[in-house]
């Protein structure tokens, strides 16, 4: 699936007009984002169910510190120019896969032999695919590429996971909760931002 989702090479056939191709690319990426939004919500619910009480309780809202340089979509995100928002979306999607992998490794100790591990692995792949598709849309739109991170996302995620693991199982569960929540929020945000590019979508 990752191959299919990630290989969105809309310039393969030069005989086709680039505008409909871009439109199709945007539409396809938006559909992917919408699909991942649903999957991300399912992943989040499954995660909190497996961690035990109080993670599944509605009133449980532990503090949300930044995770390995990845913050939640800000309150002013919607006010930013669309290209900037898409660049932020692409950056977040690039940072999420190593974090999801780190969470999967932590959960391998806490919840081995559960479907959650497979879903975390799939989520990481899907985030990569969506990120790549979004980068392609940005390139087609002529937007400037996002700034390279000073630190590789994988290393930051590994450090965060190691710190959580050293702090104990409860912080590790909190880290996973935070990462799954970020994954859900950024995929949802990406779907909303791409929706503005889709013909007939919100302005």
């Amino acid at each position, binding site marked *: 699936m990752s191959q299919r989702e990630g290989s969105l090479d809309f310039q393969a056939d030069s005989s086709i007009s680039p505008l409909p191709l871009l439109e199709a690319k945007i539409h396809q990426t938006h559909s992917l984002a919408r699909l991942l939004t649903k999957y991300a919500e399912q992943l989040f619910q499954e995660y909190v169910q*497996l961690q*035990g*009480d*109080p993670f599944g*309780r509605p009133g449980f809202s532990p503090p949300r510190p930044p995770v390995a340089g990845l913050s939640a979509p800000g309150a002013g995100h919607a006010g930013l120019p669309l290209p900037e928002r898409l660049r932020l979306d692409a950056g977040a999607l690039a940072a999420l896969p190593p974090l999801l992998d780190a969470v999967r490794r932590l959960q391998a100790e*806490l*919840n081995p032999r559960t479907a959650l591990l497979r879903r975390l692995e799939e989520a990481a792949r899907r985030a990569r695919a969506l990120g790549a598709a979004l980068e392609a849309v940005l390139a087609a739109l002529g937007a400037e590429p996002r700034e390279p991170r000073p630190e590789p996302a994988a290393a930051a995620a590994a450090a965060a996971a190691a710190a959580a693991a050293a702090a104990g*199982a*409860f912080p590790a569960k909190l880290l996973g909760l935070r990462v799954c929540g970020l994954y859900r929020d950024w995929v949802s945000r990406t779907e909303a931002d791409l929706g503005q590019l889709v013909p007939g979508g919100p302005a």
Partner: protein
Amino acid sequence: MAPVAVFQAAFLLAWLPLSTYQSQAVLSEPLSLSVHVNLTEQSLKIEWSVHNLTHPELQMAFQIEISRINKSNVIWVENYTTTAQQNQTLRRMWKSELPLECATHFVRIRGKDEDPRMLQRRVWSSWSSWVKAEAQSLLGPEPLLVFPKEKQVEEGSDVTLCYVSRHPQSHVVCKLNGILVPGEQLDPHVSVVTLRSISFVSKTGSNFFCEEDRNHTQPGLAIFVTKVLEEPKGFSCETRDLKTLNCTWDPGSNIDSWKFPCQRYTLFESFSGGKKSCKDKHWCSWQVDSQETYNFTLQAENCFRKRNVTLLFQLAHRVHPMTPFKVALKSVSATNAILTWTVHPLRNNFTLLCQVELHSEGRVVQQHNVSTWGNGQYSFRGLAPATEYTARVRCAAAQHFWKWSKWANQEEFSTPQAAPSTAPDVWRSVRPTLGSCNVTLFWKPLSRAQAHGKIQFYTVATERLHTPSSSQLFPIPAPANGTELSLDGCSHRIRVTASNGAGTSPASVMVIAGDLGDPWNPGNQTAEVKEERAQGTGDGVSMSWKPPPGDVLGYVVEWCDGPRESPCDLRWESLGPNATSTVIKSDAFRPGVKYNFRIYGISPERMAYLLERKTGYSQELAPADNPRVTVNNLTSHSFTLSWEDYAADAQPGFIRGYRVHLRSQAEQCLPGFTKALLPDNTACCKHDIDNPEQKTFLVKNLQPESFYEFLVTPHTRAGEGPAQAFTNVITTRDQHPRVLIRILLPMVFPLLFLTILCYVKSQWIKETCFPDIPDPYKSSVLSLLKPKESPHPSIMSVRDCVPDALEVVNKAARRSLAEVECPKHDYLHLLPTGSSAGPGPGICFENLTYNQAAPGAGPCGPSPGQGGLLAAPGGLLRSPSYVNSPGGPPAEEAPLNYVSQVAPPTSGHEDSPPTPLLELAPRSEYRTQMAVPPGLASPSPEEKSHLCAVSLPDAGGHGR
């Protein structure tokens, strides 16, 4: 002496310290005491070394004290004995229940030698200095911290947790799995939370976290709870090849935490001393050598405890052979087959017991046990031809059975066909016609066990009885179950055979005689046999019969499978010669349907003749409808119920009788009726008629012009007819009063006329013959007098009179019976005295009315009222009292001139008519007022004397 004393004192002072030094080996305090905090294991590592030992090695004892928060708060004291060496570093580990991050701990130590070589007294050394163990300095900058980071405990144990808050004024709330747990403050920053008897929740751990109201941080930890280790159950070992033992067990509900899996199983063998760590928690294998006896111990172990189970056995007793293979069948014939198989080789001469099974149509038809140690085989015998079979085999140890192996693959085979073994079961229906005979033959298909293959055709051979050479053959292809033949005459012998691909069955022979006729023809033999009832059994009909006097080859019971009205679907059942009863069953039998049966005997000549006829139901039902009842002969006291047209034979059961239900206004039932309850719980009266042939019933003893309701229901063995609506009937008006009026009225009027006439006549006679005697007591003059002056003021009392003389005159001319008896009383004559104001000089009264026997009494005789007067004791016999009054002369001697003729007392006869008044006459005669019955008209002398004797005392009493 003084210098000596001073010397002694100085010596003692110098010796005592020396002796003290020699008897007490005072150890210098242990040096180099250090304490290290291990937060992962929540323990303190205590290290120290001892110097200046007197020997290179010395047995020593140490005492370690641990204080918490402050040095005076000693929470742990441990004595430790070991062999110490010069400058050796000694170590002890102490685990803290309270997380070390939450409190500062202090440690000190002292020691003494315990070496038996030392003769001195053993004294503890001085304590070392307190060494501080502090982990709080390692904490981060977070405002609220919870310790330890994580915890692994056994279910049911207590857990001590703590939290450190940077702000003493903040409010901290802690929860375990969402449930609030209180904390106990250890110091202004530290609180301790103790969880008692913690429970297992999930493998992913229980979450404990705290919240601080100041900054809403939520630090927490996961507590991994492990179930208490259970003893393994069902520990068992067996071998399949005598090379490897496979031991299995049920670990129970042993649940390890996912993060800290520490559960493991180890197998120990005591004879060999072998040990093996098991990779799986359910089974473990063990290599077998020449050892024959094994004593295994299975040890289950987790982080907190161990459990052991043991098993002692002989290897040969735990052989579970592998599944046989190369299973095959050979030499399969119509009745035999040979099964062969191979078993996995074990040791030499290890005998196996193999079980072979033969299945057919889903059930086991043969089962045999065969001993073998290599290749095995078994020969099945008695197989049915043309039958599909399945054979299978399994094996176990022959000498010491332990377990069967799995069944080897099933081998399916079929036996070939053979000739049918049994003659077809044939029956017939004969219908004679002019010059010929129509015979319908029926036969039942042979069963699989009889057919021995697929029946291809039937052969019917007929021959005339008297000309055997005139035989005819009729082949009829299967699967026909009958045929119809038109024979020349009705005297034939018929043979029927069935044939399959392998041969022909024995023949079924029957003889049809011309004079036997058709049993279904009512004008023939059938009519001579009386039909009897057969008993239903629910699913069939039971019947019995009397065997005929001659020999029989058997019996045949035939019937039609449908109701009487429907076309006959002929069925029969052949029975042996010894049968005298049977129960006929058929899937076509329906409850409430009457079936007719005919029982035939088969003679040695193979002719069938009718023995008995039966009729019956497989299951009787209650009547479906009630008879239509008509009311006849309705009168004021009875009516007749009639249901003559009720078809009892058409009912779904034999009618056993009828029940007449009657309801009326009266509470009591009529004679012959008893109270009963209807299905709707209403009460009525019932009368049972046990004779099913009786179809009329007279209801009598009814009330005229009354309302009655009746219902007639038939009943069979299964029950009563339906509870339908009652029929109303009202009895007519009563006819008797009219009859009586017609008879009595003509009689009453003449009687009334006669009565009036008699009354008038009697008045006339009375007036004529015996007019009323005046009664002075009833004189109207008396009412003018005062009653108090005298009860009888106007009447002269006899006692007040002084008779001058009493004269009795005997008059023979008017002698009555009383006069004969007491002649002296008959006539009283009261003689006038000077003072007396009496009337005449001589008075005589006579009252002829009071003497029946008196001459001239008149034709009418005494009236009833007068008769009553006679019965009164004071009426008749008081008259002599006047005679026998005391002081008076005897009546017969004194002349009587006057007697006061008062009316006799009527005590007890107030209602009697007044006594006839005495009639005053210038000379009256008086007679005793006595009514004498005709029988006493001539009393005996004794009676006469008796009458007189009775009268005397009474007279005396009265005279007073």
